[in-house]
């Protein structure tokens, strides 16, 4: 990890780049810094804390925020008194590990790499230039980023909702307004024509959270043009917010007037019908958009990566992470404004794309660690070694460590006790390994910091000394003790003793646990031959893994076959044909059409799936599976669909446009109705693609016959991100837009060959009737989940029928079950570029498993004691990983250690304690409890 660094230049060609990196001095030795915080506590220089949007202060020596990785301090040379004036140096004096190095200098280095991924991110739009919102003039107008910090537990007010103007009094606001599209969808004042995609959702979230944090009944109002909550479960969240009292006002805010008398801010806004309103709020949040910072633009220029007019990477829907420079890839907000799940998908996609050409070099630079043979400790009485850590003064400054060490000597089974300044330092590790051998220790307890960060290190030391790595226990006397009770050394010392006694009590009962290696099949199974499935299959094949591709119909291509063009205008047919041709020619890819999955068993690395294709059965051994089963178009029951020939869906309209249907050429009036079958009670989700799709078709009709009137009846136009350009173009070309209310939807009646559509003009507020030659319905995207595949792979499906990923934000292509991944429409409606990203991401995640020779099974997993199991299957139901099954032979439950993640849900459920979580078994836990209560 190279921090504080900038890329100066990239030379060479894909597969052989030389990257010149300039690293700024940190002035703190990362190897020595233990992040104890003494330096920052004593540093006399206070500066604005950028992380908290300048709402509070930090010191000149600092970590940006508490979860920063690496957790190492840095000196900010802009402010450091010593670096500026040569005096002070307090941090150097107080640092217990001598980590301060004022002589640190800037370094440059050249890295040899095969591919480059650019993920420089975005910055929040600065509304200071927009005078109309009074931002910067009055403290109670804040940006959404500032408000985010106000709500945060690690923020300036500790998570309390505070009106910024109230100072030390910390009074709560009573009424907050959010103004959407500040610095987005705006070409007059800030030249950001695009939609920032994420602000609608974060504003709703902030309003809900603000109400949660408020002690009273906080009034929240969101002023918006279109609510763009097109993501998975976002609409549901918004509807919930509405029900729970968040007010949504469709209005463009004209201005925010600073307080005249009192503290209230006055909002002037125009309603849709043109009436002007004025309303008072005590805090106004500006939902600022995303933009690419000038530094990033400069970097792109330096590297020769072409950007579009909005400074985002010029993209390609079928290659969404590529840049104009071969071998250089981009992801995240740099390729267009996007939310977290999409960014995470793109990040994995970039990893997939960047490693395709490097696959041949895989494992060429890895080293294998050789460990000594494990000592057999069975039958030996416990000989516990206790290592108590001072952590510099982190622990030792509060807890009287010598006293704790002395106490540890009195505990049963303890044969060796040692006190260290830093137990985690390399020399201590060497010494620990030596002590284990010399003192014949067979259990080790380290009383120090958290196992979360340090357990693997100590376990490795045990392994290097020939002890099983599970004969180790940690007592966290830092995070749980010295940090908490910093002002009470006596109590902290007592607690440290208790914690050590508990760890020793458990350690005496530890047993060695084994991990077995299972072979890993290198084959992948991809279910679904649409764009997502094809892309995933191609990505894996390019990585060198054999792929079995299963398609239920007789041809590959899925929905892509019916689409004319992407929103960027790329011809889908051509690109799809090229993709299919590449796969058909690839010897690593085996394609099964007219096929379906009939049977699945096994687990990651060792799946056995039976696929039936053309009445033949194929047994496939595979290591991973990617589910890309797609979705289908809703068959509308609304608006005379199926009853009148002039009513079609948008996909059918694609066909009409593609074939140059004469009905279109002669049409004078065409009506589009959006949200048909979406965002209703039955399907409370947004189908995401229809707004853009409809506008693409509108533009195609206008291009062929500019005089055709096109009426788009919509609820919210969701042309998110750079798609907003299409919306602007459509308006410029004369497409007419009418917003309708779901309570009063348009009415369609047959009128001879035409369809008479009646709707309300939202500006004139009176009914309008159009006799349309053609009525095109934006039909919902509907899950195709009835195929039962989810049950085969034991993966969850949500209430709307979409496959449910492991984590909606951070693990968007994984399931809780290892080795099964998802992508494409089966996950949620999405346009082609996002499907391709997700497919690449799924391939990248799958490759992380396929690249291994073996998988390790065992360790901290559950085991069911047959002597206690009554076969009630209670544990089977509560296992979140489907790792437990009933044995048909014994009638008892059995754990598959390859699937078990050691969560212990089974152990907590069984009244007979039949499931035993190895390494955390009940005997060990009871011993800890008894030890804690005995003190």
């Amino acid at each position, binding site marked *: 990890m190279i921090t504080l660094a900038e890329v100066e230049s990239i030379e060479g060609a894909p597969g052989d780049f030389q990257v010149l990196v300039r690293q700024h001095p940190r002035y703190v030795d990362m190897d020595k810094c233990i992040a104890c915080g003494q330096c920052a506590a004593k540093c006399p220089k206070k500066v604005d804390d950028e992380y908290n949007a300048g709402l509070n202060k930090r010191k000149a020596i600092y970590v940006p925020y508490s979860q920063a990785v690496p957790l190492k301090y840095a000196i900010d040379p802009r402010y450091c008194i010593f670096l500026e004036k040569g005096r002070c140096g307090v941090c150097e004096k107080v640092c217990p590990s001598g980590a301060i190095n004022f002589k640190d200098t800037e370094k440059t280095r050249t890295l040899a790499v095969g591919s480059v991924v650019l993920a420089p991110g975005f910055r929040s739009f600065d509304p200071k230039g927009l005078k109309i919102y009074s931002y910067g003039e009055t403290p109670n107008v804040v940006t959404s980023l500032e408000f985010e910090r106000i709500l945060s537990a690690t923020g300036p007010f*500790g*998570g309390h909702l505070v009106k910024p103007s109230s100072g030390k009094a910390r009074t709560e606001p009573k009424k907050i307004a959010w103004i959407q599209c500040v610095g987005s969808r705006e070409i007059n004042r800030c030249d950001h024509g695009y939609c920032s995609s994420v602000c609608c959702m974060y504003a709703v979230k902030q309003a809900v959270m603000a109400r949660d944090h408020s002690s009273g009944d906080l009034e929240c109002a969101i002023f918006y043009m279109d609510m763009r909550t097109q993501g998975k479960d976002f609409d549901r969240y918004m509807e919930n917010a509405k029900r729970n009292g968040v007010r949504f006002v469709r209005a463009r805010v004209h201005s925010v007037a600073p307080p005249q008398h009192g503290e209230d801010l006055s909002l002037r806004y125009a309603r849709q019908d043109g009436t002007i309103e004025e309303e008072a709020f005590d805090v106004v949040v500006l939902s600022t958009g995303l933009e690419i910072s000038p530094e990033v633009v400069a970097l792109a220029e330096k590297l020769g990566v072409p950007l579009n007019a909005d400074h985002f990477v010029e993209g390609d829907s079928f290659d969404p992470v590529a840049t104009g420079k071969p071998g250089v890839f981009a992801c995240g907000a740099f390729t267009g404004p996007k939310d977290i799940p999409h960014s995470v998908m793109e990040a994995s996609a970039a990893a997939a794309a960047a490693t395709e050409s490097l696959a041949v070099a895989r494992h060429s630079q890895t080293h294998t660690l050789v460990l000594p043979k494990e000592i057999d400790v069975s039958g030996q009485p416990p000989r516990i070694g206790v290592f108590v850590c001072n952590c510099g003064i982190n622990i030792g400054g509060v807890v009287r460590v010598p006293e704790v060490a002395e106490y540890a000597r009195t505990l049963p089974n303890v044969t060796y006790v040692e006190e260290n300044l830093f137990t985690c330092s390399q020399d201590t590790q060497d010494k620990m390994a030596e002590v284990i051998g010399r003192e014949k220790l067979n259990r080790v307890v380290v009383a120090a910091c958290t196992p979360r960060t340090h357990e693997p290190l100590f376990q490795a030391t045990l392994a290097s000394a020939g002890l099983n790595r599970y004969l180790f226990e940690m007592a966290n006397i830092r995070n749980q003790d010295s940090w908490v009770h910093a002002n009470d050394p006596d109590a902290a010392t007592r607690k440290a003793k208790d914690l050590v006694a508990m760890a020793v009590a458990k350690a005496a009962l530890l047993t060695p646990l084994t991990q077995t290696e299972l072979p890993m099949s290198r084959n992948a199974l991809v279910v679904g031959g649409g764009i997502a499935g094809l892309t995933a299959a191609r990505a894996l094949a390019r990585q060198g893994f054999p792929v079995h591709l299963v398609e239920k119909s007789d041809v590959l291509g899925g929905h892509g076959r019916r689409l004319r063009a992407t929103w960027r205008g790329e011809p889908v047919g051509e690109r799809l044909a090229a993709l299919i041709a590449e796969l058909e020619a690839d010897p690593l890819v085996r394609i099964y059409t007219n096929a379906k999955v009939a049977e699945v068993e096994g687990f990651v690395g060792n799946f056995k799936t039976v696929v039936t294709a053309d009445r033949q059965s194929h047994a496939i051994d595979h290591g991973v599976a990617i589910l890309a089963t797609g979705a289908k178009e809703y068959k509308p029951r609304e608006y005379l669909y199926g009853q009148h020939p002039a009513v079609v869906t948008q996909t059918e309209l694609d066909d009409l446009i593609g074939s140059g249907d004469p009905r279109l050429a002669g049409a004078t009036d065409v009506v589009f109705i959006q949200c048909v079958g979406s965002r209703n009670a039955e399907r409370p989700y947004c189908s995401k693609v229809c707004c853009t799709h409809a506008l693409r078709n509108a533009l195609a009709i206008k291009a062929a016959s500019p005089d055709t009137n096109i009426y788009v009846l919509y609820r919210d136009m969701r042309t998110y991100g750079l798609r907003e350009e299409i919306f602007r173009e459509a308006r410029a070309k004369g497409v007419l837009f009418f917003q309708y209310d779901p309570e009063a939807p348009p009415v369609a009646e047959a009128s001879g060959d035409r369809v008479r559509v009646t709707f309300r003009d939202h500006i004139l507020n009176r009914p309008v009737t159009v006799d349309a030659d053609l009525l095109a319905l934006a039909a919902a995207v509907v899950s195709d989940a009835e195929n039962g595949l989810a049950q085969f792979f034991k993966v969850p499906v949500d209430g709307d029928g979409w496959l449910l990923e492991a984590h909606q934000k951070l693990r968007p292509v994984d399931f809780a079950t290892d080795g099964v991944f998802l992508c494409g429409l089966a996950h949620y409606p999405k346009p082609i570029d996002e499907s391709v990203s997700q497919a690449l991401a799924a391939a990248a995640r799958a490759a992380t498993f396929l690249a291994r020779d073996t998988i390790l099974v065992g360790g901290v997993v559950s085991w069911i004691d047959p002597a206690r199991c009554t076969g009630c299957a209670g544990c089977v139901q*509560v296992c979140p990983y489907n790792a437990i099954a009933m044995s048909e032979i014994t009638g008892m439950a059995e754990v598959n250690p390859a699937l078990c993640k050691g969560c212990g849900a089974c152990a907590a459920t069984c009244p007979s304690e039949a499931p035993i979580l190895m390494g955390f078994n009940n005997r060990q836990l009871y011993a800890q409890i008894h030890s804690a209560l005995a003190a």
Partner: protein
Amino acid sequence: MTLKRMTFLQHLLDFMGLAGRLHLEWISSAEAQRFVATVTGFTETIRRLGPSPLRSAALRRYDNISAAPVPCSGPASLQPPAMPDSGIQIANG
């Protein structure tokens, strides 16, 4: 699952007359303030509830029974069982 079990147990303990001594809250590692507020609040609750009645109740019970058997007019089976004088360890004592 934890939520289900703990909520159930809270109701059951309330039925037994032991309300307020069990509390469940989800606090992430980033929510130090909330953790402090919760622990402080819970400590304060426990302090106001006073020491566990279990201890004193157990002692009172044995005192009464061994010192003065209460007369009973009902069927024999309803009388408190006789307690031997020795050999009893007091629960939670």
